[in-house]
């Protein structure tokens, strides 16, 4: 692949994330993030050529919400596009913006991911995703206790539960450094056992404390062509590559046969075409879409192309913490804040902030030359984005 021209992230904005943003309506919530992103990029709305918008209609029950949201997005008189792909939406919107700028169609594109989950029933909205004839009665929304059970089967009960809670507390420690995060609980490692015991059960071994939040929030990322980005931003975060891997919706197609997950498949392909052989050593930070700590502990090995034991060791040795070998989710991740249509974009936005050196208190120490961000959604779908500090060079 040879990119027509480079695309850099030049501005990031996020609303404050919370379970109940009753102080603002949907366009107002979006507007908070829009203003912050414009300010971060040092540009005005007049400089934006195109607005990219996405969220899930059935969470808030608003049809074509980009129409009403125009009041807050600033899309009036501008070109726009609306793309949605479930939980991956935010990451997909980044791919859309990248294509729109790289193609030469637009010089400056503003992408907006949004959700105000308090205005609907999130679990009902996700359950509604299943086929009405075959799957809907079996669906528990995103509350997938089966993955807790799988991790227990794989690692043994004690080890798995300990790793899950350690991961959970690390994420909370990160969230405590991020003033935008929704859930900042001040958890300590010595509370590990009591926390899990006292937390209400959702499904099987999946407890409330393990699960991601339901949040209200918006995220905005501004993209510019190389020429423009260098003009307005002293350190853009460049989009080196992205890959989207979806799969068909019937999970049972493979029976119990082992198969490559979309995470593994996407990571292998992306790393191969970008010459990355040892992700843990070569990447400086990873913002991973982790809907629960059970998924979090299991996906480290899938994305990092390492064995489960090596992944467990990364958790045990604090290597996924800020200051570790490969910090995961310095922002606190999805377990801390989850406005679904924005969530995957927050991953990219946070990875970009780390490269730009603008992550504030949760900035990882040392140089961030290469950052990875993932989106997760749909029926186990993955979007992976690779960001770099240096503008990519393309050979014929």
């Amino acid at each position, binding site marked *: 692949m040879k990119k*027509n021209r480079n695309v850099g992230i030049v501005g990031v904005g996020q609303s404050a994330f919370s379970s109940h943003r009753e102080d603002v309506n949907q366009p107002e919530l979006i507007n908070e993030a829009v203003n912050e992103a414009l300010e971060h990029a040092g540009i005005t709305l007049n400089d934006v050529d195109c607005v990219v918008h996405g969220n899930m209609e*059935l969470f808030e029950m608003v049809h*074509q919400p*980009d129409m009403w949201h125009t*009041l807050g997005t600033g899309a009036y008189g501008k070109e726009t596009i609306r793309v949605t792909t479930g939980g991956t939406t935010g990451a997909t919107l980044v791919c859309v913006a990248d294509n729109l700028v790289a193609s030469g169609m637009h010089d400056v594109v503003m992408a907006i991911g949004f959700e105000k989950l308090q205005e609907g029933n999130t679990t009902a909205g996700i359950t509604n995703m299943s086929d009405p004839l075959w799957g809907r009665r079996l669906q528990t929304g995103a509350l997938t206790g089966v993955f807790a059970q799988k991790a227990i089967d794989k690692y043994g009960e004690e080890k798995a539960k300990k790793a899950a809670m350690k991961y959970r507390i690390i994420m909370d420690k990160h969230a405590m450094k991020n003033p935008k995060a929704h859930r900042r609980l001040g958890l300590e490692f010595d509370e590990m056992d009591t926390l899990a015991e006292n937390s209400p059960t959702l499904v099987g071994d999946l407890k409330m404390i393990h699960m991601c939040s339901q949040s209200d929030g918006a995220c905005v990322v501004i993209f510019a062509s190389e020429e423009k980005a260098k003009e307005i931003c002293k350190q853009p975060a460049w989009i080196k590559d992205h890959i*989207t891997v979806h799969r068909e919706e019937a999970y049972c197609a493979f029976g119990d046969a082992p198969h490559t997950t*979309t995470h593994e498949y996407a990571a292998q392909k992306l790393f191969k075409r970008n010459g990355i052989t040892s992700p843990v050593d070569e990447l400086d930070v990873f913002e991973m879409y982790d809907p629960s700590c059970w998924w979090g502990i299991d996906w480290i090995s899938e994305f990092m192309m390492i064995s489960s034991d090596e992944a467990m060791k990364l958790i045990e040795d604090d290597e996924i913490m800020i200051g570790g070998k490969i910090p995961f989710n310095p922002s606190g991740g999805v377990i801390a804040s989850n406005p679904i249509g924005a969530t995957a974009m927050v991953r990219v936005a946070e990875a970009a902030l780390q490269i730009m050196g603008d992550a504030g208190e949760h900035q990882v120490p040392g140089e961030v030359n290469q950052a990875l961000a993932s989106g997760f959604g749909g029926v186990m779908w993955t979007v992976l984005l690779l960001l770099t500090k240096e503008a990519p060079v393309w050979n014929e």
Partner: protein
Amino acid sequence: MARRVAICAVSQTKFVRNNTTQRFQEMELDVLESLREQVDIGFADEGGIGMSINVSNDVFDARTISDAPMTDVLGAHMGCEEKVDQDGAQAIIYGASAIMSGHCDAVLIIGHCRESQGQSRNMCTNLTFDPFFTRPVGLDYCSAAGFQAQAYLSKSGITEEQLAKIVVKSRENASKNPYTPEAPRVTVEDVMSSPMLCDPIRELHAYPVSDGAVGMILAAEDLAVKLTDTPVFFNGHGNNMDSFYLGDRDLTSNFALKGAAERAYKRAGITDPKTAFDIVEISDQYAYQYPMWLEGLGICDEGKAGELIDSDNANGPAINASGGMLAGNPLNLGGFVRAAEGAMQLMGKAGDRQVKGAKTALAHGVVGPAGQFHTVVILGSD
């Protein structure tokens, strides 16, 4: 300079009032199979289809992530699939950008909708309105169009008889279009005496409820010329958003459409839209929109659309040779089918409705209440 993009294959299902024999997936599968018969292309990161785009809508499908059941039909199992949740004409622009950016070499786009599935499409479009002020009073796309029709008819002087002529002409054209089998021919009297839907919009002034699917394959120029003898080039595009509250807008100004057209013409290097096109396909969801959108596009001068209707536009481009949306397409596929029809004309594959020697086409799509958002796509045989 980015590489050029061309449409290599186009396919659509018949659009019918209530397709009781197929699910969404099966309608799209019919389209996919027809596309694969037309061009010899597989799924691959390089030299093949590297991205699939679905056009569908969660509310109309009553399913969160309405593209989730489409992944396998779109050939995207363990591949790239995305959903454009607007008029499908937008998906053409996005698909072209993915090729122009260098991200992939070919893109498959298939859209579907079953308007018959919802109890009422007004119930669906009522949900576009904000839950505080405009939703509780019962606004939907039809009533918003009613306001716009009132304002436009009083400004333009278009008569009830002229509106009827538009519908008569649409049905006449549709009688030659095998994909609109349920749009019988009507007379001016039929239209003028049809029940009032939302004053001044009559039942026959409104686009019919229909189910169907449509798709196309886009490819980079060097690949496209190997796949087909009749590539249709994507030569320009533009879209534009108006404000939301109807009271904040001048409903007769054509603000969004004029902006969209201006951008598209600039990108395509078009200076005189009156003479630039052989084919014009517009999304006329309601009869009053036919003259209004034509004025907005600059196909005729403002205030002159009545004359164009009366003269049947004898010297101008063929307008809605397919029958247009008045002969039936679902809301989110209007502009997509228009572009597909434009491409079929330029490929010389439009059958009985073929316009001889057609070389350039304009396709138009619209989203939102009273034309809040418009898309214009310009196609050419070179």
